[in-house]
């Protein structure tokens, strides 16, 4: 059941983004930023964590999940270290994701060259 919910919820996040691409003048960069910020806000008001519990990867893999990770990290760090956690918590929690993204990008760039998607 969790697998099904994972795909449905994750798929819905993709559908929303596709609608934004097709129907609005928002650039992909703006949509991505919108997702991260939405994730942070939805986590802050308590909606996102239950969604993660129900849908697992379907909620953590889309970029709203990155916002969730940031917000959750801040919450944990503030509880542990006080006010400084506001600054350290987000980046610390997402450090694994950021580092692996950088490492895989550099590796890909070392071994491959970009080419147009329509060729």
């Amino acid at each position, binding site marked *: 059941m969790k697998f099904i919910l994972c795909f449905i919820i994750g798929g819905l996040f993709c559908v929303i983004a*596709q609608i934004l*691409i*097709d129907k609005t*003048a928002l*650039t*992909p*960069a703006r949509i991505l930023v919108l997702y991260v910020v939405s994730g942070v806000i939805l986590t802050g008001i308590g909606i996102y964590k239950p969604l993660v519990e129900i849908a697992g990867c379907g909620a953590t893999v889309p970029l709203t999940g990155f916002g969730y990770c940031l917000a959750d990290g801040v919450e944990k760090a503030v509880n542990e270290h006080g006010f400084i956690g506001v600054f350290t918590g987000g980046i610390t929690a997402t450090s694994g994701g950021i580092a692996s993204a950088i490492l895989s990008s550099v590796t890909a*760039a070392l071994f491959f060259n*970009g*080419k*147009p*998607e*329509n*060729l």
Partner: protein
Amino acid sequence: MIEMKSRPSIIGFGNSVGKLEGDGPLKEYFDLTDTDSKFGMKTWEKAESEMIRQAVSITLKKAHLKPGNIELAFGGDLSNQCTATALGMRGFNIPYAGLYGACSTFALGIGLASISIESGKFSTTMAISSSHYSSAERQYRFPLEYGCQRTPTAQTTVTGAGCVILSKDTKSYPYVSAFVPGTICDLGITDANNMGAAMAPAAADTVLKYFSITREDPNNYDYILTGDLGAEGHKIFTDLCLKNGLALGKNSNDCGKMIYNLKEQEVNSGGSGCGCSASVFTAFVMNEFMENKIHDVLLIGTGALLNPSTVLQNETIPGIAHLVRIRREQ
């Protein structure tokens, strides 16, 4: 409108295009098609310059001319500071005037090259223009590696370079008979993904100006071609003309719709870029002229005068359209 009494003739024409264009409906008309759009170069920008160099070389060869015969060349592209053309023209030692008209650069170049001959000060001039999909993406939107999705109304920048050589010796070649330089039109479009809509008003403005001066019937022309309005933009252009009393018929088309198979190739709303009108004109249109299949064509190069900074500053996108009339005696 400038009428060319000296009939600056197109004595040479040539082009070089990329893989997607070479797979399209005009594939038999192109002089050179690259297998992967890299033209043997390491970067996309270098590839574009090489493509330009080839288009110029091919054109000179076909016209049996040497670079030294060309007295003035007008050229431009979409890159920062138009370096693609400058670096491509390097080595030919042809007096060079860099131009920027965005995607209208080719029509603008033909217009200026003809005026140069009409002035009596030059006897052989050249117009060259190009664009490259990958360098344009890096220039205007994001590098290819960013891997972003494109919208349905977005157009695909043509990888192509087109070149013409004009001469005051008329013989029986197709000649430029009129040039209408466009004025900048801005109707407040801010969506950089829908440039057809930004350019359509400028195209309509120039075309309506032309027909109000000449008072001719648009159906008398073999083709009335806009540069790269794309499917969406061309529809807006046609409607704008109709609203102002000019009904365009089946001979009205857009180079951006002609260069690709819109149904089978992944090109969203069609082709765009300086190379679009440059390659369609030097490949298809000029060949039709030389085979005596057509005798009267209007080419309306259309350009969107934006850059990445203006978009970020929420500036609207001004458009411009330059018109040239090419004729050939029966």
